């Protein structure tokens, strides 16, 4: 791949180190991987974007059922098309990195699971979430009866203020009770 475009200025590098949880090596690796995804002609643009379809070909994301949601959440594109700039990409890796805190991780997890972007996990979101987990085909889905029972169970447990939805603080309350979450909510290049 072209090496002349993949030079990261030193001050930018240290700025990225300050603003993310990534180490120098991780940022450089991310830069290399990002440049491999970037089409040749885009490289000379001031802030190039990699379209979502290309991001999804990364092996780290390829078999993740939430890959599209992840792109949408971290994308800063005005078109909401899930395309990522290099900085968005770093944001993504920072949130999923080893050293990111539980607060950051749970915050982004909430946004990823909030499929309709309305700020709460309502039964519709939960249903989509469960479908993503079990595999979204006819024979892998739960039956409607099972789904209804499951969503009722979830709401009964986590919906502390009994308003029928799980909001961010309730979600973080659930997540904070598990030490496993930090280790499993992780994508490392």
């Amino acid at each position, binding site marked *: 791949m072209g090496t002349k475009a993949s030079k990261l200025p030193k001050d930018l590098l240290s700025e990225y180190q300050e*603003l993310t*949880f990534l180490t120098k090596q991780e940022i450089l690796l991310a830069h290399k991987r990002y440049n491999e995804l970037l089409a040749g002609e885009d490289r000379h643009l001031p802030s190039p974007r990699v379209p979502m379809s290309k991001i999804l070909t990364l*092996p780290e994301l*390829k*078999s*993740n*059922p*939430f890959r599209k949601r992840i792109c949408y959440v*971290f994308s*800063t594109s*005005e078109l909401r098309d899930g395309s990522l700039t290099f*900085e*968005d990409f*770093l*944001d993504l890796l*920072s*949130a999923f990195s080893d*050293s990111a805190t539980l607060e*950051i991780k749970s915050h982004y*997890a909430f946004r990823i699971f909030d499929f309709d*972007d*309305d*700020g*709460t996990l*309502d039964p519709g979101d*939960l249903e989509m*979430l469960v479908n*993503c*987990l*079990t*595999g979204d085909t006819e024979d*892998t889905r*739960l039956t409607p009866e*099972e789904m209804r*029972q*499951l969503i009722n*169970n*979830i709401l009964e*447990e*986590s919906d*502390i*203020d*009994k*308003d*029928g*939805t799980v*909001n961010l603080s309730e*979600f973080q309350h*659930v*997540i904070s*009770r*598990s*030490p*496993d*979450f930090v*280790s*499993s*909510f992780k*994508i*490392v290049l």
Partner: protein
Amino acid sequence: MADEQRSTSFQRLSSDSTVSTGSDDSYEYYQTDIYEQLPSTLTKRRWQQVEQTYEVGSCEYDLLPPSIDRDPHQPLNMLPLCMQEKRNLRDRRHQERLRIGFWASWRQSQQIARRRLREQVGRFFSGLLPWKHTLHKIEGRFGVGVKAYFVFLRYLICLNLLNCAIITGFVLVPSLYHKSWEDYKSDNKSILHIFLGSGFLEGSPLFYGFYQKIPLFFHTGMGTILFLSLIMIVRRMVVGYKHMWLMGKHFSLNVSYKVFYGWDFCIQDPQAASLEHSFIRNELKMDLEEQRFRQKVSERSMKQWACLYFLRGILNFVVVVLLCGSFTLIYYAIISAEKKESFHWTVKLLMNYLPPITITVVNFLLPHVFSRISMFEDYFLTTQLNLTLVRSIFLKLGTLAIYIIFITIQNNTCAENEFGKEMYKLTIFQLLACFCNTFLIVYLKRLLAEKYPSSKLARMIGIQEFVIPLNVLDLVYSQTVTWVGVFYCPLLPGISTIKLLAIFYMKKFTVMRCCVPAQRLFRTSSSAVLFHFMLLLGLIMSFVTIGVNSIRSDAGCGPLGNDTMYSVMDKFVKTLPISAQTTISYITSEAFIFALILAEIIILTSFVSHGRANRKTIERLKDMLVMCSSDKRYLVKQHSTWLRQRYRSSETEALGK
């Protein structure tokens, strides 16, 4: 734009009302427009707007949600913002710092510098831990559960390395300093002795007998090792226990867990991903089934209960018989290994290794039998697995205890050396067993399955699963042997470090090459407590063994000579200056102990009452939350009915005109 949004949601609301006139529950309250204007929801709304507008390059600080930048000292990378916003925030903080004066700004920048230093040091130390890449690869293919096994293995290796360092410092170096190498005759070398721990190894630093003349160093070293291990394990167990307690009956969050972090984001392999899908599906279905099962259990009739209890009683009896049988088998193995007859050396080796072989075979076979037995007991699956695990723990530690007891009651000239030798043999044999299991059983199975995938035999055997709990149990067992033996065979931590390293690579080979992950999701935190508890049991067992042995040791051959552990201490104290002696006698006196116990009671009581108060506060806060939310809902509903009425009246007015 906001107006537009409001009007659309207003239309949605009004069309809603025309569809189902009057009914208040036709829409969810969080879909109303006033809900979207509530401050808590607004945080999110605004923040999305910031995302959209920042690309123009304008720095609209005021648009930042108030809840996000409450604490100016919070590191920027801890904020859930995109890069450009963090940059803007940093600039703003910088400007504020200029405003607040020299001293405060200097303090803030010092704080930042200190934090960075801490991060760097932390990163440096975490970089020292080996096998990061390997673990990452395993994680990518098999998920967090299997990785937890390897992390546990790595933890044990580090623990043993630490013990090694302590032994070298406290025991090995002083004794080598005291002892000239002429005492140490090294005739009679053969490979057989390495396996038996006899011959030239007998008088070597490997065993207790070598360490004469340095009783104090020896005991300090051993004491340090055991207490350090105790502290480390209790600390880890307490962390796990805290989480388990939090997850327990006070906050039952079972299903939510499985859904909210059911997915393991580390998984990269598509095959592993589809496996994970089916795990989660099975797990969720299992939960729902368990719910139904509980209902069924509550409907069971008296006669059914009687039958079930009868069956369970019989099966438990079978388990007890099996346990007793295995204990007797080990007893006979020890007895027959005792007979010192002159055979060919291979037979001698085999006879010598008879007890370890018996223990390993029993430990290998019986857990499988236990898991079969628990299938018939009509418990639910999780209970079944736990029951099998508990029975296996009992088996492993029980066999080891029986072995230790029989060795201790034998009368030998140098009982401590004999004891150390047995532990040495157990350790060596475990390595051999792991080797055989990996290359002769698991690998051959896999080869068979690959070469002749359609043959009947291959299908009957199937592919080996990597059952995490049983593998962890093996590790716990080996660590227990190390702890029990360390007093009598001081180089045992070193040997077991090497052994664990070998096991690490063999298990890596097993996992990467031969296994499929087990058919059940494995949660690290829920089992960590159990594993550490098992480790603690092993440690307690070693304390008991050493304590019992130290009381009954008569004519020893080690550092103590004819003394016991306590008389050595007394002798040492008498050599100290008078002031130190009085201090020590005060510390060990009843008056001091009484004060200490009293202080401990007071501290414990305060902690308990603190915990109780916290629990009450949590309950009260929960109630308050429910109250607040119902107030909110009520107000939102009132507001939207009012809006609807106004809309309708304006509509009728328009119609009237």
